[in-house]
């Protein structure tokens, strides 16, 4: 039996039902905070502008709770709790800063850095790296991690779930964000964490050896990776964060109209990133949106007008010559055969402003309503 009960018919618009939810109050670092029931301690702290350091936490994902960097003290409880996945309760008294917490967090980062190379200068995200910021904040150098350092063998190159992404096991801190976004947000579960402890790897999931990867190459794993362990293989060299200009625009492919940032270095588009809250896509993209930008600088781009020569071939010409020729020919055709002997096809790829000018040109200047575009195709 599948169909709805009649009772379901009376329920209200789900977007308007917020008023009935209960709120609770707690104290964080001696400040009172009121949040809705079900919020985590991290939510509550952020609402009040109190910073708790995090690493595996990502706003687009359900809490993972793997890194233990967000530990806080709760009055009456001995063990520190992780703020990202502990529910805030009525009357709770939470401390986010103490010597004990500082030391705990420092040990956590030291252990991560025992695995992750600290030669930041060749890394493309040097200067825009959450882990680097934490190492700086907690004053950790390579030597501090020596007590944990396991001699990890140089991992052989491992195939990832798609040929267009590279996975760097040594950079990977096994935070689990990539696995989480693939399974929980994309609903695919194409990658998984395989192996134990520091030697674990992110691997593609395959039903059996012959099965195709479940991966659809959307690159969401790359988007949420905090340490650039998953990288675009074919995009070419990126710029350093401080020389990269990010320009927010609307995707050029399908009709969803996702918002994305074109990353520009020296007047070249070198990549696409997103903002977590922007647009209908809220930071998500598909393979075309994320990887389909390199045609911009394709060698095949037309860079000068072309005109048909006497031999019947197309040859380069100047703008002045091309435009004068066009104006003359369209005027002549209109004069000889009337306005309806002309027609125009506009473009669903061009902007509103261009489509507007195009139909204005055809209607007002050519004098015909023979204007269309490929809406039907």
């Amino acid at each position, binding site marked *: 039996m599948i169909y709805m009960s009649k009772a379901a018919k009376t329920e209200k618009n789900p977007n308007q039902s917020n008023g009935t939810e209960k709120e609770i109050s707690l104290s964080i670092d001696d400040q009172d905070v009121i949040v809705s029931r079900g919020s985590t301690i991290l939510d509550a702290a952020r609402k009040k502008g109190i910073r708790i350091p995090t690493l595996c936490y990502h706003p687009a994902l359900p809490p993972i709770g793997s890194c233990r960097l967000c530990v806080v003290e709760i009055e009456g409880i001995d063990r520190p709790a992780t703020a990202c996945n502990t529910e805030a309760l009525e009357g709770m008294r939470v401390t986010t800063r103490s010597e004990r917490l500082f030391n705990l967090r420092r040990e956590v980062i030291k252990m991560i850095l025992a695995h992750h190379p600290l030669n930041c200068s060749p890394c493309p995200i040097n200067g825009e790296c959450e882990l680097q910021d934490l190492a700086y904040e907690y004053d950790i150098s390579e030597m501090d991690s020596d007590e944990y350092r396991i001699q990890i063998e140089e991992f052989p190159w491992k195939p990832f779930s798609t040929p267009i992404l590279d996975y760097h096991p040594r950079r990977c801190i096994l935070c689990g964000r990539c696995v989480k976004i693939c399974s929980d947000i994309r609903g695919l579960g194409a990658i998984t964490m395989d192996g134990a402890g520091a030697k674990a790897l992110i691997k593609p999931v395959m039903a059996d050896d012959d099965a195709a990867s479940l991966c659809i190459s959307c690159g969401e794993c790359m988007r949420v990776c905090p340490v650039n362990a998953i990288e675009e293989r074919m995009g070419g060299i990126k710029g350093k964060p401080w020389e990269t200009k990010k320009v927010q625009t*609307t995707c050029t492919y399908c009709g969803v109209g996702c918002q994305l940032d074109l990353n520009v270095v020296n007047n070249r588009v070198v990549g696409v990133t997103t903002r977590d809250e*922007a647009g209908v896509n809220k930071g998500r993209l*598909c393979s075309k949106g994320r990887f389909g930008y390199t045609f911009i600088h394709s060698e095949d781009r037309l860079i000068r007008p072309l005109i048909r020569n006497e031999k019947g071939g197309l040859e380069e010409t100047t703008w002045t010559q091309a435009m004068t020729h066009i104006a003359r020919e*369209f005027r002549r055709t209109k004069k*000889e*055969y009337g306005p309806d002997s002309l027609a125009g096809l506009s473009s669903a790829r061009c902007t509103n402003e261009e489509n507007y000018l*195009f139909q204005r040109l055809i209607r007002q200047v050519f004098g015909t309503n023979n204007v269309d575009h490929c*809406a039907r195709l």
Partner: protein
Amino acid sequence: MAGLAAVFGSGAMTNSIEDIEKADVILITGTNTTENHPIIAQGIKRAVERGNTRLVVVDPRRIDLVNQANYWLRQRPGTDVAWINGLMHWIIKKNLHDKEFIAQRCEGFERLAQEVEKYTPEYCESVTGIPSEDIKSVAELIGSAERTSFLYAMGITQHVTGTDNVKSIANLAMITGNVGRYATGVNPLRGQNNVQGACDMGALPNVFTGYQPVTDPDAQKRCRDVWGAETLPDKTGMTLTQMTPAILKGKIKGMYIMGENPVISDPNSSHVEEALEKIGFLVVQDIFLTETARFADVVLPGTTWAEKDGTFTNTERRVQLVRAAIDPVGHSFPDWRILQRIAQLMGTPMDFSSPEQIFNEIRRVTPIYAGITYARIEKEGGIQWPCPDIDHPGTPYLHKDGFKIGKGILTPISYKPPAEIPDKGYPLLLTTGRMQFHYHTGTMSRRCKSLNTLAPSPLLDVHPEDAKALGLMEGDMARVLSRRGEIETRVHITKTVNRGEVFTTFHFSESPVNRLTNDALDPVAQIPEYKVCAVRVEKI
């Protein structure tokens, strides 16, 4: 769009992307959403996984969303009117139609009810191949649900009965009261980034901007005044699909094509090539030397979206900003600058200094855009039309308080078979579509190394039984022939397609599938029947 405009008074997605997830039932048909609108497909999957939403997929192919679906109705291609009438038959029979909504908001119910009377579940099964029990269950599901959202795309419109199909979906939505409310609606998913905007801007032969008919004296006057034109043509022009025959007949002598590639995208493309060969004067403006540009007398280098400012309007009518990230490549120019230069050289003053200035003129002639400004889009993150004035918040869903044309029109529609059905000489039925790694005619996506690595070549999906009969193995090359032409392509054996049906995409110019497709048109919308044509497959 013509179908929706006729029944509702405006042809666009009635609701928003965001509310799809909030529906109790989502019915998708003729949209392989996972491939064509991946971000919307994710929302649908999330909704189903949360457990509050039932998903019904009606598609001849076993598309990805079938995995999430509570019901998969596998109709024979081209039988959409029949199953939709069948659902309405059972909904009315079970008294599950929304009488209040019908009485207050619609006209023509009696005649519709009479028409669908003969579409019993058993009759529908015989026409569509969908088991009668499934038709009953889905009809009851939709009839009892509070909110159903109907999603469709080209799988519904690209038939000779495309307009009928769309009107049928609108009928079903209206008799179940699923229009004019949050998380319901009739939602055509638009395939290209700015196809909604190009329609809104009047790049159509019958309307100015904002769907104002060229025959309407008020609209004429508004445009004449703002444009400074003494007269404007007031006779409806030709559609793209009518232009090809008109060129061949010598009626059209000169043509300006901006950012389109009809040689690959249009049906029966050898016909198109013949026309472009024949035409007196052809200008093509594009970013690459496309298959179409090769026929031009003059080719003008336009720019990509990364090199210009402006706006796109997405499938949910949201106007959003496009921002120039880099300077135009080489000696190319943003397309708007080229257009205005041609107007100037032909003696009409057009002197805009920026796209924003153009947009402000659009606002003056387009009531549904009047309240939208660049500054507001920037601040509010996009605005959904209609937005008639500067204080209007935009419109997340249409027809809340009534239809633009008064009452919604319920149209009785009878089932008609496709224009070309398989026979002895051409025993297989070909449908065409897209895949997620490529876009339209492939001029952009095929030049992206990553995307081309993921999908380097075209594939013809063939059912294992058919493949066996034809002696085809996975990866074999095959020749596909129709009455209009032939192509060669590699074979992929899969149960995604039904027996007797084959599928391929139109992204690949080396296997231009539109040499095969039928240029039979829907008589109203002039959409070609891409989704059904008869072919023969031979091993090479």
